[in-house]
């Protein structure tokens, strides 16, 4: 029997000074170098053309930067961010808990699936923006309406992915649970749930990016506050640079949340990727 492979952590650089890479090789080897150069060129182009355009239609990076400092200093940006995050976090928590529960129930019970899938499919097929006036009618213009709008978009990918994950569990794994006389609860906890975890995590990641859209849409149509409120307000008053600040913050929020979800996915669902690589 061979010994466990010791992972080689310290790369050996070999003998000599090494060969200098050509520019083409450098660009192929360091993706962030290419991204950086691309961004710098784009910013220069934007700064150059933006300054020549009517400030009502277009702004430029240094003006956006100044506007950002102004909004941050006045506390308006932080207030907007917190106003947005509150309903968003509540909405996402509800979507994750109830989305996973509903998806599991649908995946485990055929009768429950048949009873519920008309509503899931119908609601999922309706563009949720079309429901916003109805939600406002029922829930008013406050936090509740925002939470409901976030849930209405974010919960569906979580339900559907959890359901597919449960259905995807290979029969042989369920046999293992049965053969070792796992109770129904144990087989859910130790086999079905971990086996479906990669799907569930992907569903949560999709739900997060849809939830941000829901959050902004809600802020456009209900009480105009939060980051969406800042966008609407400065858009209506032709303060384009300030509007861009809020847009960038929303974009950054999306990137950070998606990256965080992907980090969790790598941690809890890495076995699936490595299993696929092997095949």
């Amino acid at each position: 029997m061979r010994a466990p492979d010791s992972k080689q952590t310290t790369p050996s650089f070999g003998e000599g000074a090494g060969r200098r890479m050509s520019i083409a090789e450098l660009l192929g080897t360091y993706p962030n170098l290419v991204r950086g150069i691309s961004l710098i060129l784009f910013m220069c182009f934007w700064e150059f053309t933006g300054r020549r355009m009517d400030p009502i239609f277009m702004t430029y990076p240094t003006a956006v930067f100044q506007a950002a400092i102004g909004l941050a200093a006045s506390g308006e940006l932080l207030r907007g961010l917190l106003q947005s995050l509150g309903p968003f976090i509540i909405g996402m928590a509800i979507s994750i808990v109830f989305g996973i529960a509903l998806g599991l129930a649908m995946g485990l019970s055929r009768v429950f699936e048949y009873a519920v899938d008309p509503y899931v499919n119908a609601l999922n097929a309706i563009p949720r923006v079309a429901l916003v006036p109805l939600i406002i009618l029922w829930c008013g213009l406050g936090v509740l309406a925002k939470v409901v709008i976030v849930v209405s978009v974010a919960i569906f990918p979580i339900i559907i992915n959890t359901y597919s994950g449960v259905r995807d569990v290979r029969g042989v794994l369920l046999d293992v649970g049965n053969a070792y006389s796992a109770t129904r609860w144990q087989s859910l906890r130790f086999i079905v749930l971990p086996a479906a975890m990669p799907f569930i995590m992907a569903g949560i990641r999709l739900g997060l990016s849809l939830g941000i859209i829901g959050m902004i849409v809600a802020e456009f149509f209900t009480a105009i506050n939060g980051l969406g409120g800042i966008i609407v307000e400065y858009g209506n008053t032709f303060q384009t640079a300030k509007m861009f600040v809020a847009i960038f913050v929303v974009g950054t929020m999306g990137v950070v949340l998606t990256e965080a979800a992907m980090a969790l996915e790598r941690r809890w669902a890495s076995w699936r990727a490595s299993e696929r690589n092997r095949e």
Partner: protein
Amino acid sequence: MGVETHSHDAANSAKGVSPQRGLVVSGVEKAYRTTVARWGRKYVSSELKVLEDINFKAPPGQVVSLLGPSGCGKTTLLRIIAGLAQGDGGTITLDGRPVVGPSKDKAVVFQHFGLLPWLDVISNVAFPLRLDGVPHDERIAKAEHYVKLVGLAGFEKHHPHSLSGGMQQRVGIARALARDPSLLLMDEPFGALDAQTREILQEELLSILSKTGNSVVLVTHSITEAVLLSNTVLVFSTLPGRIKHAVEIPQRASDVSAAAARTSPERKEIERELREMLREDEEAVA
């Protein structure tokens, strides 16, 4: 039914106090039925008999092989004994208690290993103990013992996908032994492995069994494997699966060296007989 049973069985049940020790299978049958539903009623549209009047015993410490062509119902029989499928008739008892479903005194080794890919080797082996609610440290200690027994010391933290097929099946065997079951059910355990790995694992299984002393029911379609590993080989006919012959192997290979056993003329002769028994069936079909 044309079953040649040697006097061995009688000797065993005559041992006295507990004649029912080990596995006793009597009169087991199974048919697969396809049903159609029409207006709230269910009709059987076709029926395929896969097992007919299966009778055999696996006394403690003995290995019984179910040998036959693919589709003869031997895996179905194993699943019925494991409690993963329902038989249509007959009774099965293990150590005198009727088998009605999965239980903790039986363990299954799966053809495609059936390891949980998100758990490392040690947690896979400890999985049955986790189901039993054994405290963490205790079950890890126990699992370590079996990981060592199957020769995987040093691989405790590896995940199944980073192991070869042979190593994965070692994990499968260690997991099956973890509860120290009285009966080990193996469904073509080495069928998915290459020839050399298969031979090595067969020999290691022999040495493991000589230490643990479980009874084993082994499904295989390899004549050599059946002869090498078993005390008794049950030869199945195909559709419906019946036991055509029960052949006793005079001395299980664990008692002699496995390498010598592979080439011994005595065993070659038994293998030749078995091959003929299996062929009768094919000729009848052709």
